[in-house]
């Protein structure tokens, strides 16, 4: 049983082509290519969504029960975050193109990782610990939060690359200002989801399953570390008025920590959250 895999393969190819299209559009500055890249990205997203639905129906649960499904869902949320910001009119022109390249690359990488021979796409029955409605709430909200953090990360990386050149034109200054605003907005949108899903719903589920809200399991600890870094970001950005490179760096570090919490902790530190 490996429902949805065909759609995931189609989506993976779509994301890779969309990423390359947006990249070429940036180099040769062709508007039609940029539009085509964004539409292809959206089409790949639809294919991925269909695949996830099919898998969820076959599994009878939210499809985030193993690393394969989590990677696919993780990529889906990155794409959702990007498309949500495009539809909301937050991303335009070159910023849309730049963030699209970053997010497209990340989604393509997650899909490629999911499709690697190391991850089995087979549907495996749920272990007792995962048979809970909190699974969907906990994992999906964390991923929604992290989807927005990914957009902030992509914007942060673009910011840091763009800010490297010494002399800048006025329109480049405007671009940097918009990127800075995008970093803040993405984190401001994603942070409450991450807090609710990751910390609070996770704690409530832990209470149901293990009889305590918090147990300093490595996954919980690194979730808290990531949360603290974003708390630091918000305080420094909103209260101390930090702008530019410094907050872009924090957004990058925060995302890398989120990535480590998702993928790294399972392999490097053994804990209660070690599911394959």
């Amino acid at each position: 049983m490996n429902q949805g895999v065909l759609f995931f393969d189609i989506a993976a190819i779509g994301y890779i082509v969309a990423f390359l299209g947006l990249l070429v559009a940036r180099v040769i500055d062709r508007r039609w290519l940029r539009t085509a890249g964004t539409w292809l990205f959206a089409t790949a997203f639809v294919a991925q969504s269909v695949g996830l639905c099919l898998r969820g129906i076959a599994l009878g649960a939210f499809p985030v029960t193993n690393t394969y499904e989590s990677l696919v869902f993780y990529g889906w949320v990155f794409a959702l975050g990007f498309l949500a910001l495009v539809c909301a009119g937050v991303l335009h022109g070159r910023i849309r193109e730049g963030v699209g390249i970053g997010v497209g690359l990340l989604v393509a990488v997650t899909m490629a990782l999911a499709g690697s021979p190391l991850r089995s796409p087979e549907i495996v029955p749920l272990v007792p610990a995962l048979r809970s409605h909190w699974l969907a709430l906990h994992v999906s909200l964390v991923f929604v939060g992290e989807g927005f953090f990914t957009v902030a990360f992509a914007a942060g990386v673009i910011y840091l690359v763009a800010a490297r050149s010494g002399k800048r034109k006025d329109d480049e200054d405007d671009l940097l200002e918009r990127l800075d605003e995008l970093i803040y907005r993405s984190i401001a949108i994603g942070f409450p989801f991450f807090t609710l899903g990751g910390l609070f719903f996770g704690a409530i589920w832990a209470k149901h399953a293990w009889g305590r809200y918090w147990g300093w399991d490595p996954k919980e600890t690194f979730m808290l570390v990531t949360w603290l870094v974003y708390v630091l970001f918000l305080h420094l950005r909103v209260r101390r008025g930090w702008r530019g490179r410094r907050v872009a760096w924090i957004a990058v570090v925060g995302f890398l920590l989120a990535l480590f919490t998702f993928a790294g902790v399972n392999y490097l530190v053994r804990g209660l959250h070690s599911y394959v």
Partner: protein
Amino acid sequence: MRFGRATKRLLGFLGSLRLATLLLVLLTLACILGGVIPQSSVTPNADLLYRSYGIFWYRLITRLRLDDVFHSLWLLSLTGLFALNLLLCTSRRARGKIARVFRAPGFRALSETDSRTIAIPFADPTPSAFEHLDRVVRRAGYHRVVRREFADGRAQLIARRWPWGALGADVVHLGILVILAGALLGVFREEGTVRVDESERGLLLPACAEQDRGADCLPFDLLVDDFGVETYGETGQAKDYWAAIAAWQGDRLLEEARISVNRPTTIRGVGLYVWRYGAEPGAALVRLHVVDPVRSIVTAEVELRVGETLPVPGAQLWVSVVQFYRTFSLDEEGNPVDLGDVPGGHSAVLLQVSGLDATGEGVAYRDLALPFLPETTTQPEVAFLLVDAQVPAFIDLHFARNPGYPVFWWGFVLVMAGLAVALYVRPSTVRITIEPERLLLRAEGRGGSRRADRLAADLATLFQQDLLTEAEE
């Protein structure tokens, strides 16, 4: 309360953003250390692990309590300081903010030279202007409109939208303080684990009986009527572990419940959870065939538990079961290991046989024609074959009573409500000065000057539309 200058400065520092930033960085680093270094409270034999890092690291880890970061005094002190910082910061800021929410905003003169002020031509007298403006600002979602007319003929209208939105961050702080208070109350928690094996099915475990199991007392007698595992039909894989329990107080039944993983119950404030389910190879009951290796016939049958020693019928020998392996295997160094329940694996027992002048030890397999032949010299040779083994199942029930739990809930609610307000609700104030022949309009609020200018422009457009509609009517 009056404080001296030094005390004020100290309180100012303790409630400052600078200290908050420093503490957030330190707490983050402490959590990283605690997440990376194996904690002695979680990892068995962590002490041996630190020794393997070398003497320098071993000393550093143990002296700084990095082996148990989350219970160390230094981390608790940092957390305490963080709570104090939050408390002082919130109390200082919230007082002024609450006053501003409930108090009418002060009037301020607007100047045309200010780039953020929008001028709109308008010729109506003040009462009519107020009427228009009132309508427009209310339509734009503004409330608490304040009007004031000055002696020189000018007038000002001030309207606010979501002024309570300024309190969001303070509500988050309050929520975190409540969560920390809940954690503090957790000091008074009672928790423990009761292991019930198959032989105890249907037995009433009296209150506090679990003390000799290394757990705290339950405030009631517990009857574990039955327990088991639910499996997926097609694969046989475990789907859920469950236990049918009943709580008794003397002769009175308090509650009956069926609990399983993720579906606990609470009786008299005590949460009961299915913690673990498994088999206990250490309590296995094994059946051995005693075989005459020369004639290949079974001469006797012995049934004994792991750890038991019994005489072998028809031979002056004693046999004891040292260990039972659900799936027998050998590790890299040739030592026997139990791989657990592996489909297709062979179970085995490690036997020790003693005679009058010799002792032998070896492995007898199940389902394999490899009988264990002890090397006793003075006795007639016998061989052993493992025929059957019953491994008793057990279930671990965890119980916990923590007075901090209800407090956590309120903390969660406050933090989430505060975050939603702090990040998504943007309070704004608009001031409109009515001058002869024109209006001056300026907006202020969270979200930066760009957003304030957009708000002011939107209002100006709305106002002009209102004028047009009125003219058409």
